[in-house]
């Protein structure tokens, strides 16, 4: 009973969650001429063709002043905090943005991808491309002479303008799929017939819901989020639903060697069971899975008297009883990024 009502609630929540981006996506389509121009520019290469083109050759429903003004609003909400770049591009804890020699490509890339190892986040998930373009226009406007002149006169040697942290390997070009169309698709599917079909969003909640201390993400990564204790499950999408289900409810059936369960016995006679994390000349580290979230423990090799490989999986074996059938279906649907039906499983 309880799990039933939970899943119904989950579905209701999922619909609510889905509906919002749907509306927002629709509203962003309202800006479509602008969006088009930018998508064609940004989509081709993450470094992006020169901003100038946007300004001059692309159809211009918005003047650059309007663009800058819109960018100022984006800036205000995303960048201007005192902890970050400060109002007007100065006075923040982060780098000053005024009177710099930025190029549009550099800024676009930096805003989209962030700077690993610093406090600069990637905004690709939180700002739309038009918003990024507006933001770039605004930030460039903070360096009136140099910035503008540079952007116009410099048709773009790529790496030269990139900061040292970006000049390494070029990020892979993924002509990013339109997030809007994806969301629309899953929304339609959920409404389809959710008694029979698993629900991708409800599965996502089971996997990632931060209100639950223990769930899949504690050990598994999916699309670059989650723990590193068990296998990265991103690749599961290509597997048959039945196989995915089996790996959830009967994890012992097939164990990848890399994630085999081992037991370490120390000189003091203590035993620890889990998955090996890594080792070097002196130390071996184990994800102790006897408790969740798992605890990584380091042992001096000289203190380890025995290491045994077990024929069991470190993954809990009680998901068949812990989750309702609907929940398992949701989970499989989420892992496949498609709504799986009951008959796909059995």
């Amino acid at each position: 009973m309880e799990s039933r009502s939970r899943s119904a609630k989950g579905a209701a929540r999922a619909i609510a969650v889905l509906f919002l981006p749907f509306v927002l996506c629709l509203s962003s389509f309202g800006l479509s001429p602008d969006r088009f121009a930018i998508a064609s520019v940004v989509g081709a290469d993450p470094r992006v063709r020169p901003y100038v083109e946007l300004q001059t050759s692309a159809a211009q429903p918005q003047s650059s002043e309007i663009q800058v003004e819109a960018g100022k609003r984006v800036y205000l909400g995303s960048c201007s905090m005192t902890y970050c770049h400060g109002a007007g591009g100065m006075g923040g804890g982060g780098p000053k943005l005024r009177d710099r020699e930025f190029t549009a490509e550099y800024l676009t890339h930096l805003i989209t991808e962030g700077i690993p190892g610093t406090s600069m986040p990637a905004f690709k998930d939180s700002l739309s491309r038009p918003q990024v373009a507006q933001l770039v226009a605004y930030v460039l406007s903070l360096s009136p002479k140099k910035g503008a002149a540079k952007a116009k006169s410099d048709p773009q040697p790529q790496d030269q303008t990139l900061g040292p942290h970006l000049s390494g390997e070029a990020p892979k070009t993924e002509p990013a799929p339109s997030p809007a169309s994806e969301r629309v698709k899953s929304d339609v599917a959920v409404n389809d017939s959710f008694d029979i079909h698993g629900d991708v969003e409800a599965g996502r909640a089971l996997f990632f819901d931060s209100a639950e201390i223990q769930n899949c993400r504690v050990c598994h990564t999916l699309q670059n989020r989650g723990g590193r204790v068990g296998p990265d499950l991103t690749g599961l999408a290509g597997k048959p639903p039945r196989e995915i289900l089996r790996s959830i409810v009967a994890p012992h059936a097939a164990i990848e060697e890399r994630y085999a369960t081992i037991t370490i016995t120390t000189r003091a006679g203590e035993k620890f069971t889990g998955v090996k994390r890594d080792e070097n000349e002196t130390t071996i580290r184990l994800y102790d899975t006897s408790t969740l979230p798992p605890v990584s423990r380091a042992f001096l090799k000289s203190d380890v008297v025995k290491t045994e490989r077990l024929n069991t999986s470190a993954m809990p074996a009680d998901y068949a009883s812990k989750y309702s059938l609907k929940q398992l279906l949701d989970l499989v649907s989420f892992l496949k990024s498609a709504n799986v039906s009951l008959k796909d499983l059995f």
Partner: protein
Amino acid sequence: MWRRIAAEHRFRLRLYTFISFVLIASAASAASALPAYAQEPSWERLINSDREPQNWMSYGGNYAAHRFSALDQINRENVRQLTPVWMFHTGELQGGLNSTPIVVDGVMYLMGPMNRVFAINAATGEKLWSYVYKLPQMSIPYQRGSRGLAVAYGRVYFGTLDNHVVALDAKTGSEIWDVEVEDVRQCGCNITSAPLVVKDKVIVGGTGGEHAHRGYLNAYDAKTGKHVWRFYTIPGPGEPGYETWSEKMWKYGGAPTWLVGSYDPELNLLYWGVGNPSSDFYDEFRPGDNLYSDSIIALDPDTGKLKWYYQEVPHDMYDFDSAYECALIDYEKDGRKQKLLVHANKGGMTWTLDRATGKYVNAWPHVDNLTWLKGVDKNGRPVGMQPVPPDKETFVCPSAAGGRNYGHSAYNPRIGWWYNIGWEICNVIRPQKLEVKEGQPLFGGGMEMKPPKDKPAYGHINAFDPLTGERKWRYNTTGINVASLLATGGGLIFSGDVMGAAFALDARTGQKLWSFNTGAGMSGSPISYSVNGQQYVAIPTGMGSLLSGFVPLFWPESAHKIPEAASTLVVFALPETSVKGAASNGK
């Protein structure tokens, strides 16, 4: 009490102890002998730290967040002779040095930026070991500096910038366990403050007030790293207080626990300050009081269950965290004893509560410029709160950076005065509606720092009666004071300013008695300790704080001293000649 040392280390411990004894015995004078490696401190010692003035064993100096060292070798008469005796460079400028060093039995444990941990001979500055936590390639939410670590049971505990909690062997710096709190890529939250060890648990707060995240406090078994309890600072469906949130925002409403709590062993209560609700400024999607944002929570440390709460700023629209330290002060006047909790809120008000019950006792402003409220009612609840409508600019004092920031207060129990910092800076807030996505930044608008109306920005340090708020003196600081205060038995208040001057004030008059130009602005927490009868004052230098950026807007001369001019601990003592024969302090 858990005193047992992990079995696998017993043998090496004995060996080290043996070696230490041999070395100490063979050294002609113990002055620079190899320090006894910490197998300690035990809970008994930690909770009675006031009996060991030679040590600084926990973040707040004691569990009452007094930041008071009873040492008096350095005092009002001789402080002018104070001289630097050693320095320690963390080697990582990005993030400055924001932390509170810990000293146990002659060994200092120091948290540097980017999760670098060091053990240092506290008398000589010689490095004993270092541990560099390996951060994955990621963008770091919040700052790169950390505010400290905890030492207990022969282990060093700290939180990481990618949201893990780690235990090291205090003798060797080798890693013992490491547990992830939550994937930083999902929550946009991490750990920049020190853990607090309470009995057999390590209790750790986290950031997240500027992200779409549901705040919490976590407790781990100090020995094994096993997760023991989690207290969500935003109640979930079915829990009391859930009705103070919208259905949409309870999961993303911030309320982080980004600093360190206090503990009262008699009441067995753990006190923790909770930060602002997310989004910071735009508030229309979170109607209600938004419990327990901007509140003091009192928990049973054994279970993580809420005992009482007191909300200072209901439905915050100004980013006025209540995350700062809870000073536990036993106040006595006219024969009447009161167990108080004294708490400075970011909004420039100080609240005084009965710490057994959470009942309101008093509230008073510790800054001069306050626009956000007209006063408080009989329960201490703000009245006449200033509206901050979306898409309009509203001038609010103090600023979202606070009537002070994390730079901690200090309390001298001998004088009975509480010392606190004040910042007179305002801001223009412009809330803006935004989309909520888990783990993504969630400011909900922006703010621009401004001086108060008709006058330049300024800052100060004050001495207060902790119950009445009566001001005993004020010292006007150079710029604003970002670094914490330290009170000592020598009748002094130590701190450091944003221009790089370490300084000492007379605790009774506020008069400046000593200063030394270290060359780099400060945002860490000074401490005092002694080794072999010599008292030291250790002052972290190097700003690196997210707060440092706006200081040059108001004090342009500070521009080259911040944000990242140093990450160096500077340690001072009296010249040997003036100490001889005065080795009455400490061991």
